[in-house]
């Protein structure tokens, strides 16, 4: 009897003493083990980049959405007849209330932000236990990357979900939800003001520019300390700063924008030449792990590149929205309309149309995201040097007229690069013609050039709002919509219309009591 009892109590004791209910996951990493060393930080920030690849971030949305509001895009009826109507609601702005992409863009962008916040808090609060070796250098660089991506996401969200800076920028709830710490529970937070979000974006990007290395972004996969490209650098942060200040469209911010644009354009450390040496159209992205040298920051869009799937499929949806090789069965949804070539005044020999687009039947498609060998693009450019030149040109068109003309001509010269040589720009577009223009007409040329150069790169909606605010010019009512009965009644919307704001997702409103909808 006694031995049995003692055995029984021994078992009992054993269970009580050794925490019998602790079970450790085998396929996942418990949070206690997530931040041991600098490598853990590295893979965590890689996770933030990975989220950028989502179709709701740079996989498609941020490149596509601002452009399909634009004047030069139309919907392919053939795609609609095949039932490929998933993004028609984007085209029909009035549907913003129930429009799925607004929800997904919001959710996936905050996924990037949360992952960045995890890295930021881990570095700032010294959560990493093992800080030996090259810890500090690497941790600084990783922190800089996290700041850069976080600011990028806040900026993209702000441009879609909030009004142009200058409208109610100090009114509560005018901006988006600003989260600077990783999510640890189910909490509620109100929207910040537009200005508060801009302030944070500027702080983050300046801190990123301070912390990040100057390595040139990924011309091939083995730069950047042996890692593949597609990572943020000091010049990526500075280029984004130029874009952010420029978007704000005030005189004071233009000074900053010009400073950062110059800092990137004029840098000699890792120059970003605007040249066409790669053949074809200079700014086309490539699928062979490289980028055009003019690209300052790109998102690598490879998935599982080490398996045999990589070469046959890609996560990007850009190709299906803008260009499909399999035309008869799976047509492209968005096409360039007649305005793209006529109203914008393309001239023969412009590679941006002769090589950058193609005509099938009566329909014109872009080849921008086609990639090499008719494969979908694997890398998606976020910012490239042509945009900085256009920023500089627009800011300086009165104060430094010569530089503006040079910058515009530089872009044109590149666009007309053919047969291995420059100097093909037709007379009506050359320096002499530009020099003869009045200031107002020069501005119109800059804006036209911007439209052509950055077509279908996610600039159009933001450009429209900025230009209208900056110059108060009503010529820029470019948006059209269908009425609620889905009849094709075009209706121009003013730049400050509430109707062009993305709506805060229902899922956010119903779960976050402090969040309020857009008007």
């Amino acid at each position, binding site marked *: 009897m006694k031995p049995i*009892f003692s055995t*029984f109590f021994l078992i*009992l004791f054993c*269970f009580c003493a050794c925490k*019998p*209910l602790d*079970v450790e*996951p085998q*396929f*996942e*990493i*418990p*949070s*206690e083990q997530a931040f041991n060393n600098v490598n853990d930080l*590295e*893979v965590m920030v*890689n*996770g933030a980049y*990975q989220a950028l690849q989502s179709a709701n971030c740079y996989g498609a949305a941020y490149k596509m959405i601002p452009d399909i509001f634009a004047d030069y895009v139309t919907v392919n*009826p053939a795609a*609609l*007849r*095949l*039932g490929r109507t998933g993004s028609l609601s984007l085209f029909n702005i009035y*549907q913003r209330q*129930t429009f799925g992409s607004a929800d997904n863009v919001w959710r996936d962008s*905050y*996924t990037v932000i*949360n*992952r960045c916040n995890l890295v930021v808090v881990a570095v700032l609060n010294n959560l990493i236990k093992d800080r030996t070796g090259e810890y500090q250098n690497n941790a600084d660089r990783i922190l800089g990357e996290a700041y850069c991506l976080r600011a990028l996401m806040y900026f993209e969200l702000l441009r879609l979900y909030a009004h142009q800076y200058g409208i109610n920028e100090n009114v509560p709830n005018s901006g988006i*939800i600003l*989260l600077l710490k990783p*999510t640890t*529970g*189910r909490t509620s*937070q109100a929207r910040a003001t537009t200005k508060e979000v801009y302030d944070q974006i500027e702080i983050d990007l300046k801190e990123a520019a301070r912390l990040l290395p100057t390595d040139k972004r990924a011309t091939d*996969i083995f730069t950047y300390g042996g*890692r*593949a490209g597609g990572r943020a650098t000091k010049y990526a942060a500075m280029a984004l700063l130029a874009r952010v200040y420029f978007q704000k469209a005030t005189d004071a911010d233009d000074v900053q924008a010009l400073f950062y644009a110059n800092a990137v354009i004029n840098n000699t450390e890792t120059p970003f030449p605007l040249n066409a040496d790669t053949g074809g159209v200079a700014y086309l992205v490539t699928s062979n*792990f490289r980028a055009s040298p003019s690209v300052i920051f790109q998102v690598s869009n490879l*998935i*599982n*590149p*080490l398996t045999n*799937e990589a070469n046959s*499929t890609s996560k990007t949806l850009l190709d299906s929205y803008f260009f499909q090789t*399999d035309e008869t*069965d799976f047509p492209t949804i968005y096409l360039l*309309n*007649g305005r793209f070539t006529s109203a914008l005044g393309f001239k023969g020999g412009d590679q941006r149309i002769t090589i950058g687009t193609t005509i099938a039947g*009566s*329909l014109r498609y872009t080849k921008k995201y086609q990639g090499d060998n008719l494969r979908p693009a694997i890398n998606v450019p976020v910012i490239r040097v042509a945009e900085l030149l256009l920023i500089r040109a627009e800011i300086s068109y009165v104060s430094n007229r010569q530089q503006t003309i040079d910058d515009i001509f530089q872009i044109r010269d590149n666009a007309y690069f053919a047969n291995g040589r420059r100097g093909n720009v037709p007379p009506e577009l050359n320096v002499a013609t530009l020099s003869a223009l009045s200031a107002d007409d020069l501005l119109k040329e800059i804006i036209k050039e911007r439209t052509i150069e950055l077509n279908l790169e996610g600039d159009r909606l933001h450009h429209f709002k900025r230009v209208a605010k900056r110059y108060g010019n009503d010529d820029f009512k470019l948006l059209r919509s269908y009425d*609620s*009965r*889905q009849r*094709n009644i075009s209706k121009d919307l003013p730049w400050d219309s509430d109707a062009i704001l993305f709506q805060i*997702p229902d*899922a956010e409103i119903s*779960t976050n009591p402090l*969040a309020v909808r857009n008007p």
Partner: protein
Amino acid sequence: MFSCKMKNFQSIVFFLGFFFTSSVFAQNFTISGRVTDKKNEPVFGVNILLLGSGKGAATDFDGKYKFNVPEAVAETGQLRVSGVGYKTQVITIKSRSVINVVLEEESKTLKEAVVVGIARPERKIYSPSNSTTIQFSEIKQAPTPSFTESLQGRAPGLQVTQSSGVPGAATNIRIRGTSSMSASSDPLIVVDGIPVISGGGGDGGGGIGGGLNLGYQSNALANINPNDIETIEVLKDAAACAKYGARGSNGVLLVTTKKGSIGSTTFSINYQRGFQDVTNRIGLLDNKQFLSVMDSAYFNTWNKNPSNSIKRPTDSNYPRRGSYYTFPSAAAFNDTLAAVTNTNWLDKLLQIGIVDELAISAQGGSTKTKYFISGNYLRNQGVMIGNDFDRIGGRFNLTNTVSDKLQIGIKTYVGFTKSNQVPSGGGSNAIGGFGAAQYNSLPIFPVYKSGGVTRGFDQYGFNPFFNAYGDYAGTNIVLSQDRNYASYTEQKITSTTNIFADYKLGRNISYRLEYGIDIFSQINKFYQSRYVRTSEIDRFIPQSSVGDSRVFFNNQNLNNIINYSKNLDEKQVLDLSFVQNFQNTLSFNNGARGEKLPNDDTRSLSQAERALAPRSGNETQFKFLSFLGIANYKLKDRYLAQASIRYDGSSRLGQKNKYGFFPALGLGYILSEEPFFKSINQISFLKIKGSVGQTGNAAGISNFQSLGLYSSGGNYAFNPTVVPRQIQNSNLSWERAIQFDGSLEFGLFRERLSGSIGYFNKTSYDLLLNLPMPPSAGIQTSYFVNQGSLRNSGIELELNSTNVESKAFTWKTNVNFTFIKNTLLGLGELSSNSLGSLDYISLKGNQISTYYLPKWAGVNLETGEEEIYEVIKENYAEPSSPYTFTGRKIRPTRVGQIDSNRISMADKPVMPKFFGGFTNRFIFFKNFEVSLFFTFSVGNYLLDQGQRKQSYVNGSNNLRADAVNAWSQTNKQSDYPKLFYPNAPNTFGTGDEVPNNFWYINDPMRFRNTTRFLHDGSYIRLRQISISYSFSESMCKAVRMKSVRVFAIAQNLLVFTKFPGWDPEVVGNLGSNAERNLQIGTTDLDFPQLKSFTVGANISF
């Protein structure tokens, strides 16, 4: 330590004794004796019962018994002596104080089974808790893959719904209602003392996945041989569940398998053969009707008749329009062929199913050793061609009395099932099957090619009109049912072994060790040939594909039990048990898919040229540790008390809240034992009892739900990534329920009428609620919190009556009713929540889920378009507020407009108001028996999503037969809306601009369920008629048999219902726990229940 505890218990007992001794009690007369068999061996476990009272005793290992009877009956009282395997004797006491009994062996006869099936099990008399024991061997008659199917309507409080008639499909089991929202509401299933992997969201940690979704969940319990089961006890209240307490919130099903019996070896052979067919068939359009309906839809869309150049959409000149309403472009298909082809695809799919079941068992033993050995083979050729289910299993149960003190035993079972599956539901991902047969297999398509067709795989003789080339969205189901072209197999292996040792430590104290290991493994494989699918990578290229997924569970249980039982004095009996239980369950799963096999004969995954996502693998584990103290006290055979306290921990819960205390108390009073009651002859038994207690639930959430988790997120540009998956939740705690239970049990007119009536009230609180996270959290979409509460209250009623009892004819009736009111009391932070479906909403004060649908306003007789009632919009933001209509009817032109006019429909509940079963048995001359068994469920509504799909022209689908009455210019009085082409462009040109009027105005209606498809789901079903004949003992002896019985059973012959769909008994194709709790009312072309006719024989010798 132990002695110290003993002292405490003695003082408690003393206190309780003091408390109760103030009651009055009568003089007693003690009877003792010894029960032996003919060989003078003592017989253990024989029941000796004083008739007309609940009083009795059981013999010990030495065959001895002793108990008190009231002085008043010492002369005339009758003892009933019964033991399994022996003839029952009734002995008049005649004031003898020593009564020795010699038992006569008896083969297990029909009569005993019949009686036991209806009579109240004797051993429960002294329990104050509420449970129902089902003599399973009695009700298990028609061959079914899983025992759970037989339980429907058999016990009050128990609700069983089979998800479909597919063999091996899961059942939805609820004991006293749905008591959880996001976590599991399935009862804990315990086989021979060991909780088993039940799958389908049970305590196995979520549904058992694997393979493709074939439209139904498979049932892990289908592996257990129902013939081995002796009893199933349904534990309902907190006191009854005390032994399994922390997991008892959803009730417990306690399955006990057969033991051997003393005596020479008895062999039993049971063979049955059954024929099955679907209970119902929905009428679909035939070819002429279909073409006429399509022509009319064409006219309605473009306001002109199909012309010669663009005729019917079946014409090859009709422009291709992709996956929407494209019809074959193959040259040979044309109007002429369509007009003469009339294929009934349901006929091509369905056949008469055949079930064969052979069960053989041997049992016997001596007083020292008893054994039960069984083997079972079941083969079910399904009602769907290509569907079958095979099970083979064997059991060995052995108990051995080693010495006076030690008893050991083992119960072991190995079962293997293999099933070739055919997709069944409308929502399934797989190709072909029941959904396809009625939906996108059109009557105008021939099964086999006609002359002149040269495209595709026509060398196989199948028509090429729907095929892998994307001409047409449908599938030739005859092709996809052919295992040469598509196959889905599921194999399961279950092995359970329980061993126990029972050691008498002293006169009153014993120690019992139980250890059980339960291994479950499931392998799902599929093959789809290049004739039925296209590549996922190279669009429109036909390519074969194979897939394989595996699930493995290893579930181990260890119970340490100390039992103490003492007659404190003449009047008081105290039983104490201390139990320590430890459960450790590991599971692994992995899956892979690949495509592009080298040729049509290869089906190996390793031969697939390309891997396809998802390739999955996971390993997970949970542990469960509990300590239980339970005391049963009985005073003077009529005052009963049971108190228990548990301390339970689950590894799934948060670090701070892993453990919880769960007390329960039950009290009972057997009034009929009071001396003054003895004079009331009409009342032979009367007992009131009540219990209160707390139970817990942590089932159905993920094993690592409380941990902060990170995992690999794939690569970014060749670099590995780690991404956050789940935030830590160290407060996650038990979902708890407080249960009150009060009931009255009675036996009248010498047990001619007996039954019980009871009330229960179970309030679940701290619900494990899976609340959605704000998307700005940037991590998981939902988060488990302990919030909200709900209540299930109701009345359970059971009546057993012997209406006529004579030698020539006996008529017995059993009826049980359960009324349940399910109420959502609160949702914590949320005022309402759809928890996952547009068509349901959870509102405080209603059932936990309420239909949330646009109210259909019928057809606009002028235009033929559908209308819905417009809701006052101010209320839309807050769905819990009462809805009011504006009085207007609107014709929705977009989906958002439909969604913003949804209303909650508390008057059309998702769950039934009451349900139950009703049995009548007629026994003629003790050997011919007829029984009729009805089940019913009343008050619930069903949402027939399948009806919606078959009420619109969605492209290439067939419609239900009532579409011929659709509104048209010539039939303007119809209540069936006008049909038209979906997504219809009004021109066929390819312009630069989007055509005007791109959407047909009323088009979005086909995307949303409305009250048009909501129907009363009440039914009464004649579930079983059985006729059996048992040969008399003398006839059996003549052929050296112990018993011979032949029987015929008809199942599901009739159903009385207003539901117009396939079958009112349905739970839909639901996966997650939340879906199975909240969305049970939706049916989507689900496979109906089966009717069957079975004949068979039982022989034992």
